[in-house]
């Protein structure tokens, strides 16, 4: 078997590299098993993660047995994997080069490149390299040509890739292999470039690739060096913001939820969705994380994208958009693909694209309102968008909807959706108080806000069970109820919130630090939900518990990150394994916000002590 294994490795065995336009997953075994080129939501070039035979992969590893250790070069998204074999040691450095603009002006650089540098650091290592791309989800006829001085070209409808290397790659049918041996001190280069609409820029390898690596490390370290965070869990926070930056589509400012599709929420099950789109449901939390860490330019660009790239559907908002603000692709299944460890179907596009999700309105308004909180301007065009969205909420807040978790079933009166409608109205009023949105019908908005609050307090509170519930008049709880305090609807230390937290812990708890998002007949087999775990830590830090409790909770969740510090969407409570699309922006946003809240609480306690 060309891939060398029956199934793809555990999801947590992967690390992510990228260039803020697309991203690649590389396993501990040096196999690049996922890459959609040229954009996040483009068809895949490598996708062995979802089908080891049809998907395509690019492995560079030692032949025979080995052990691996790996790390991100500090402050970067460049992965170094060390392979130890019985005869020697090999270091593989993987990145997708990014350059500062001055360098790009002075040098012709490839549009898109994956650069893999090998160095034998001890003894002798024989390689086991396989280069087997499969463009367009493996459904593309390719034309392979080997030009001795230029490299291996693979041409397909819509573009071409070139593999260049100073190692000896030999073509064999529709793949290339390399079994060269490397001796201690040798350093070799492999570069794959893509060009869609023009001649490719081919890497000159050697010093040229060293310069590309140097530029990339410098670019990432400069970027991560801008992080203003000084609080606890610094390493994890910086790794999280670096991961979010990998999910950021720089040309438009959008942020994709994850770079993958169809990694299962339930191993072997059918909860497999395409996450290569930009969801609005985490907009305000993203903005809090971005501003909180000092990334003002990126955060403002994201808000700009939120308000203006989505204008094709205004004043209505869709749950998700493409990186350019278009509707997500119609959902379809790659019916002949095996899926990640037999988790089928593999889905492309997202069927939730047309759902009514009222929470997104509050998210967008709350995100934009943070511009004012951080003393940024809201221009006239943005103000008009906010007015429009506000009017829409005023007219539609009472409707049942699908809610944040997008179940593929009927609409219901979700408490979280109502909460976010309340947030929308509340934030609009706060903006008006700040002297913005002068045309706002304050009385009407106030009436709507109060009516929503009344409904939540009356209909979402279950007196018998002593808890807020996920839907009006319901019995079940949902982790989103913890956000009531974050959004200033109900203080974290209020009796109602403390009681709700207790029920959530009892009913949704999945072990130390772990929480399910909800439990119902759809849930069995699903893992604990990453961001919900961080919401619990944040709730405690907001006043629902002591600082110690919040930190303990936070630390407990951190144990479930992979060796590179990456989180997926969910965590299998039994094994601790990563589930769902990977890495997941939502989870890393939760981590950053919880850390920020813990740091704030810590600072408050510090300031209080001298006075006492």
């Amino acid at each position: 078997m060309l891939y060398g294994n029956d199934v793809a490795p555990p999801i947590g065995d992967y690390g992510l590299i990228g260039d803020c336009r697309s991203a690649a997953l590389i396993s501990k075994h040096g196999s690049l098993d996922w890459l959609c080129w040229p954009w996040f939501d483009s068809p895949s070039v490598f996708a062995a993660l979802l089908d080891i035979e049809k998907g395509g992969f690019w492995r560079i590893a030692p032949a025979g047995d080995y052990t691996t250790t790996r790390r991100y070069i500090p402050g970067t998204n460049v992965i170094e994997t060390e392979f130890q074999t019985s005869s020697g040691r090999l270091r593989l450095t993987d990145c997708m080069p990014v350059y500062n603009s001055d360098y790009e002006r002075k040098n012709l650089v490839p549009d898109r490149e994956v650069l893999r540098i090998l160095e034998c650091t001890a003894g002798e290592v024989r390689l086991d390299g396989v280069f087997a791309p499969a463009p367009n989800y493996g459904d593309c006829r390719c034309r392979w040509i080997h030009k001795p001085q230029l490299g291996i070209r693979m041409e397909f409808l819509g573009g071409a890739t070139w593999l260049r290397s100073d190692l000896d790659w030999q073509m064999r049918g529709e793949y290339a292999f390399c079994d060269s041996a490397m001796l201690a001190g040798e350093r070799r280069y492999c570069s794959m470039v893509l060009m869609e609409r023009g001649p490719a820029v081919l890497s000159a390898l050697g010093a040229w690739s060293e310069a590309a690596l140097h530029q990339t490390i410098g670019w990432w370290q400069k970027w991560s060096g801008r992080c203003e965070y000084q609080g606890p869990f610094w390493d994890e926070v910086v790794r999280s913001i670096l991961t979010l930056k990998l999910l950021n589509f720089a040309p438009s400012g959008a942020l994709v939820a994850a770079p993958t599709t169809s990694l299962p929420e339930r191993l072997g099950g059918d909860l497999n969705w395409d996450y290569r789109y930009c969801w609005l449901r985490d907009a305000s939390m993203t903005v809090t994380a971005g501003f909180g860490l000092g990334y003002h330019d990126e955060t403002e660009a994201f808000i700009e994208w939120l308000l203006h790239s989505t204008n094709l559907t205004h004043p209505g908002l869709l749950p998700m958009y493409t990186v350019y603000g278009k509707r997500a692709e119609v959902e379809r299944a790659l019916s002949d693909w095996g899926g990640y460890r037999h988790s089928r179907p593999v889905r492309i596009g997202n069927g939730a694209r047309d759902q009514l999700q009222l929470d997104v309105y509050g998210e967008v308004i709350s995100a934009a309102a943070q511009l004012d909180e951080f003393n940024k301007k809201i221009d006239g065009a943005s103000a008009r968008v906010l007015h429009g969205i506000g009017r829409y909420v005023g007219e539609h807040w009472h409707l049942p909807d699908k809610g944040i978790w997008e179940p593929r079933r009927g609409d219901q009166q979700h408490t979280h959706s109502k909460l976010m409608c309340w947030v929308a109205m509340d934030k609009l009023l706060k903006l008006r108080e700040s002297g913005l949105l002068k045309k706002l019908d304050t009385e009407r908005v106030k009436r709507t806000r109060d009516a929503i609050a009344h409904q939540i307090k009356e209909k979402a509170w279950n007196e018998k069970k002593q808890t807020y519930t996920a839907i009006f008049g319901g019995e079940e709880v949902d982790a989103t109820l913890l956000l009531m305090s974050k959004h200033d609807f109900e203080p974290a230390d209020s009796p109602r919130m403390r009681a709700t937290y207790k029920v959530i812990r009892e009913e949704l708890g999945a072990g130390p630090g772990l929480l399910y998002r909800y439990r119902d007949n759809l849930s069995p087999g699903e893992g604990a939900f990453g961001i919900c775990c961080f919401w619990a830590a944040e709730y405690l830090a907001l006043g629902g518990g002591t600082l110690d409790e919040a930190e303990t909770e936070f630390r407990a969740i951190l144990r479930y990150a992979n060796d590179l510090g990456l989180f997926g969407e969910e965590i299998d409570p039994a094994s601790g394994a990563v589930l769902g699309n990977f890495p997941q922006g939502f989870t890393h946003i939760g981590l950053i916000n919880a850390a920020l809240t813990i740091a704030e609480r810590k600072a408050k306690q510090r300031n209080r002590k001298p006075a006492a």
Partner: protein
Amino acid sequence: MTLHIHWGQLIFWGFVASLALVGTESIAQELGLTRLNLPLILGAAVTPDRDRARALGVLLHIVMGWLFSLFYVVAMSFLGGPKWYHGVIIGLAHALFICVIGLQILPGIHPRMASETHGPSSSRMLEPPGFMGLNYGVSTPLAVFVTHAIFGAILGAFYR
């Protein structure tokens, strides 16, 4: 034989034909027929900055289109005057020259283009077109022929 050039017509229709040439080339790229991007190749001869190269290349391509318009007008006069099909014949001949000779010698004269013989170096990294431009896709010759036939047809049909 005396040849009278109507400069105003030549400048106007030469410009229109050049725009059509750049436009149809661009459409051919979008359709995935070819990666031959003459604006990028021309601009990259002047600057390594890809964005500037593309913009500058469009201007250079239009200026060259004007110069070639003069050649087309002269050539059409030898065929019996401007007619759309005379323009197409000259366009096809021009395309044949580009594919067989022009693209072949390009790596030798382009300061940033790699050669098939020596491979890329730190100063010459642009993928060479190869015979008939086939490195840029198997449909490249077709795209070159069609776009230049359109260029010639416009000049032949409208230049008077």
